[in-house]
């Protein structure tokens, strides 16, 4: 079983300050991984680099057998205009984009798929509601329905359950488990360690540098969590230029 994502000595950041520092490793095809760590640990930044939206300061990300455009990515704060005059079904139908593009015809079967996806997230009957009339939890269900249609091999979720009610979280976690059972690769940035322990077989504990990466029980051992907290408290505006792995890069 190979890796679908490989990180090669990857450093990511903003204004030359690293948010993720020299990380190497891989996400196995079909794995279900939680990314946890303190605020500012670089979790969201890592996902952005995998989607290709952020250029690395050093190192690179390689994808095996997946096109970047075939990643289903749920950002933490989507740039979605919630007041936009569009209904729920049309929003979900955007998930067909890779198949129909800007000009292709939407078939009746695609419409049925979209309705089925809405039913799968518990929103049957909401097809013609404007998205502005939905609660935060309902809207998150709509975005999950859109990801269902994307039918992606690789799914990245950035804090998908933050500020979402318990019932919705449980329903959407069931979808994540279904994706895992379908051998899709899922990576989710999460905060709730209990949730991670209960549902995610593997964990990457990140605090700018990878603290631990492996089976969840080992990665979330108390010693690792303490180290992660200590790492996060370092931040130096006057930090000198890092020379680790700089051979050839300088």
């Amino acid at each position, binding site marked *: 079983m190979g890796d679908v994502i490989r990180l090669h000595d990857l450093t990511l950041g903003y204004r030359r300050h690293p948010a993720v520092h020299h990380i190497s490793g891989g996400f196995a095809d079909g794995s279900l991984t939680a990314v946890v760590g303190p605020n500012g640990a670089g979790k969201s930044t890592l996902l952005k680099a995998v989607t290709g939206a952020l250029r690395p300061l050093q190192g690179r990300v390689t994808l095996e057998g997946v096109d970047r455009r075939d990643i289903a990515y749920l950002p933490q704060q989507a*740039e*979605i*205009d919630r007041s936009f*005059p*569009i209904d729920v079904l049309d929003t979900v139908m*955007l998930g067909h*984009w*890779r198949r129909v593009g*800007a*000009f292709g015809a939407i078939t009746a079967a695609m419409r049925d798929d979209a309705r089925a996806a809405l039913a799968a997230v518990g929103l049957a009957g909401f097809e013609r509601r404007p998205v502005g009339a939905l609660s935060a939890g309902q809207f998150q269900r709509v975005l999950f329905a859109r990801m269902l249609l994307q039918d992606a091999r690789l799914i990245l979720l950035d804090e998908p359950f933050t500020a979402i009610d318990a019932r919705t979280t449980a329903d959407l976690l069931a979808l994540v488990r279904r994706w895992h059972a379908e051998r899709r690769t899922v990576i989710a940035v999460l905060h709730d360690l209990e949730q991670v322990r209960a549902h995610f077989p593997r964990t990457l504990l990140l605090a700018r540098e990878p603290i631990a990466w492996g089976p969840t029980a080992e990665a979330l051992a108390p010693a690792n969590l303490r180290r992660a907290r200590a790492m996060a408290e370092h931040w130096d505006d006057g930090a000198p230029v890092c020379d680790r792995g700089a051979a050839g890069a300088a």
Partner: protein
Amino acid sequence: MTAYDLLAAPFVEFAFMRRALVACLALALGCGPVGVLLVLRRMSLMGDALSHAVLPGAAIGFLVAGLSLWAMSAGGLLAGLAVALTAGLVSRATAQREDASFAALYLIALASGVLIVSSGGSTVDLLHVLFGTILAVDDGGLILVASIATVTLLTLALLYRPLVAECFDPGFLRAVGGGGAPVHGVFLTLVVLNLVGGFQALGTLMAVGLMMLPAAAARFWAEQVWTLALVAVVLAAASGWGGLLLSYHFNLPSGPAIVLVAGAAYLASMAAGPVGSLRTRLFPGRHLRA
């Protein structure tokens, strides 16, 4: 005076009124949907900026060929596209956002336009360029606005999906590899085209009125992009008709009369429209059971 005398007779009796009305209807067809998309893309003020940007080009056309429709339209189109393109490039190449670079460039364009016209023509000419001459629209002018409306509607029909998807969720569209700069560029071209069409009828300062006011008013009537566009077209056409009648009966300048009728429609919609208006906020009505 009967309703017929009031509402229809001027158009039946006078050919220049009929031409003006046809020009308004054609403008409404193009400007309505373009305005709706401008509002949805949060570019309302950019429409304004672009309408001013058209001026120096039209002025140069005027200096070269006099009051020639084609020279002024071509000049206006080029100047508008140049400002749109430069603003886009500035926002991509520097840290400045597109709206700020638009504002900077249109002020430069407006000032140079006024300077060019006043150095080469009389004040009357300047007034023509600034406020338009819809009552003097000739066959060439009608063909121009009708062509622009046709091109606009066909292009929007073709680009509807990426345009809507890009204003609703730009991040998603980028991730799946759709939309982007080409679609944005074609859309800005449509905006400039419609402003050029509106400019010879209503003038550079008023052209944007028939684009933005009906579009902004439509937001209080409809909840889907295509219904918004439909409402905007109807409001724009009605404003043209009402404005021409006002200008005829009370001997007012036609451009401002049309824009003011559109403005009145906007205020009425804001006060009493069925979606998110003052009325629905103040008097929401009794709630439903479920």
